[in-house]
């Protein structure tokens, strides 16, 4: 005769519940909790006390919610330990691809005179401000010493097209050397496209070089940010984008925007401009404080609150565009969502702990100096060498990456060990930005309560969580972005 036990026979009081590590933050009406791998749960005040005191039992819904979210386990069980360990390893797997990004600053010359850029106007003396072939070769050698199986070489400047001859040499040399190393190589040129010629496009096409440009919005906004003799930066950028899309394919051309104070009230126009040009998405990012801001006081002009308001309005506008049927992601949100909704690493070097300086990217300046990040290079142009790691003439990949300087900078900026960060409910989805904090607080870790970076991150994560939880239609779109 078949005998079945009822549900309460499986309450297993002999196997005591035990807490698993989690973090919390007070919010409206209760608490936001995240477990060791960043899964979120919201609890009322009462549920929170019951959880921390382990006053829960099977069937009370709190037990079920807490168990599934790995907030509690039972003594004697092992599977959840293994799951959390496995997921932690997955989330940190970006560490396996060391220094996948290599930026080559092929020239400091540029024909624009953007107020927030420190390079400019060195348009005459080629030999002084162009990277030499020798420097390029040495830099390439170092790049190939990185253990990453796939590397991206990004050409920067000034305006890199002004030294296209060197770009060609580097691309060809890299492609020649790659098979022996077993590495895959991607190439990108970050250019204002004003000087784009047919020959440039032909070369990019045959060697699979991507183009990345800046597009700050409609003409008046873009031109205000990027003055150029002739005042036609926007016109040339748009022409360049169209020609590049036609020659290389729309998926081989990307645009980035920089937010200045003038951008803040015009988000829908900026997005409309991106849509108009058939770009496949937009990356809403705040202005960095480095060369630009410090010189022109731009970064004091708007704070985290104003930027978050801009971002929220932009996101709303973009979600509506998606709801109307056009797939158009906001790329920064998409990165954050991928961190929040999956354990797959994003490869984005600017939001990770251990930081992406050196470990994620190396920058080879035109003069042979090697920097831990592009922003670090910009600080050096203003006299601050904190992020200079060495010189291509004397350094090797190992000496750069294992330098005391870099190790100290990375170690001292770890979010996992930092005050407030180590207890922050968002930490698994955030990262350290030692360059920003050094630039604004003279300290790679920074005091997070004073950090606009922190305020922004908390604002973005909070907003995305709110949408995921309370707006099902928008949430479905966000989930699609996160799964990309």
């Amino acid at each position, binding site marked *: 005769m078949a005998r079945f036990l009822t549900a309460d026979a499986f309450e297993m009081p002999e196997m005591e519940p035990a*807490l698993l*590590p989690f973090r919390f933050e007070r919010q409206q009406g209760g608490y936001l909790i995240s477990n*060791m791998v960043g899964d979120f749960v919201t609890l009322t005040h009462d549920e929170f006390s019951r959880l*921390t005191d382990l006053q829960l039992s099977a069937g009370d819904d709190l037990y079920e919610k807490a168990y599934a979210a790995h907030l509690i*386990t039972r003594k004697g069980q092992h599977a959840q*330990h*293994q799951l*959390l360990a496995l997921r932690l390893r997955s989330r940190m797997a970006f560490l396996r691809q060391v220094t996948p990004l290599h930026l080559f600053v092929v020239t400091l010359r540029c024909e624009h005179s953007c107020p927030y850029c420190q390079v400019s106007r060195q348009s005459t003396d080629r030999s002084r401000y162009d990277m030499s072939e020798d420097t390029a070769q040495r830099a390439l050698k170092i790049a190939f010493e990185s253990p990453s199986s796939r590397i991206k070489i990004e050409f920067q400047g000034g305006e890199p097209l002004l030294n296209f001859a060197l770009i060609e040499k580097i691309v060809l040399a890299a492609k020649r050397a790659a098979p022996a190393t077993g590495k895959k190589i991607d190439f990108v040129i970050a250019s204002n496209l004003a000087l784009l010629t047919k020959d440039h496009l032909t070369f990019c096409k045959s060697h699979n070089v991507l183009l990345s440009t800046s597009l700050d919005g409609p003409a008046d906004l873009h031109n205000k940010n990027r003055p150029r003799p002739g005042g036609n930066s926007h016109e040339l950028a748009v022409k360049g984008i169209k020609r590049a899309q036609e020659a290389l394919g729309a998926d081989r051309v990307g645009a980035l925007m920089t937010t200045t104070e003038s951008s803040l009230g015009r988000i829908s126009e900026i997005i409309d401009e991106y849509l108009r040009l058939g770009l496949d998405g937009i990356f809403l990012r705040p202005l960095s404080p480095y060369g630009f801001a410090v010189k022109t006081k731009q970064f004091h002009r708007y704070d985290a609150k104003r930027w978050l308001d801009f971002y929220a309005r932009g996101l709303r506008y973009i979600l509506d565009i998606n709801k109307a049927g056009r797939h158009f992601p906001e790329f920064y949100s998409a990165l954050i969502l991928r961190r929040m909704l999956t354990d797959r690493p994003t490869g984005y070097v600017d939001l990770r702990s251990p930081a992406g300086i050196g470990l994620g990217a190396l920058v080879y300046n035109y003069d042979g100096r090697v920097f831990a990040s592009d922003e670090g290079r910009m600080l050096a142009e203003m006299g601050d060498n904190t992020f200079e790691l060495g010189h291509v003439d004397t350094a090797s990949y190992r000496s750069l990456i294992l330098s005391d300087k870099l190790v100290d900078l990375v170690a001292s900026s770890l979010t996992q060990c930092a005050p*407030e960060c180590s207890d922050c409910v968002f930490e698994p989805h955030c990262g350290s930005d030692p360059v920003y904090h050094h630039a604004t607080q003279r300290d790679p870790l920074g005091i997070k*309560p004073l950090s606009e970076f922190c305020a922004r991150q908390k604002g973005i994560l909070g907003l995305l969580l709110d949408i995921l939880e309370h707006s099902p239609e928008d949430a479905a779109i966000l989930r699609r972005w996160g799964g990309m």
Partner: protein
Amino acid sequence: MAAETVVDFDAATQSLGALNAAAYRLIGIAACQVEASGSRYVCRLTPTGQLEPDTLRARFLELVTDENVREGLRAKTEPVRNLILSLAFGSLAAKSQDTP
């Protein structure tokens, strides 16, 4: 000169670490000075902005409560946290254990 709010705690039941952590979270909102005085910890809070004393006090007490909970949680979960971290990143054993 902004007015000072004073909150004190029984040192026998309130840890200094939690007070410091709460003070850290207040940076930018209020300066906080913690000192031991006999069997009590005395916290002097000076707002940097326009915060009302009562609001500041309530806020600080909330933060201290939260830090106390965090301290308790840390103590309870540290062993299992170390276990999980060592499973994740310790040199992985060649053979994992069989379950009973």
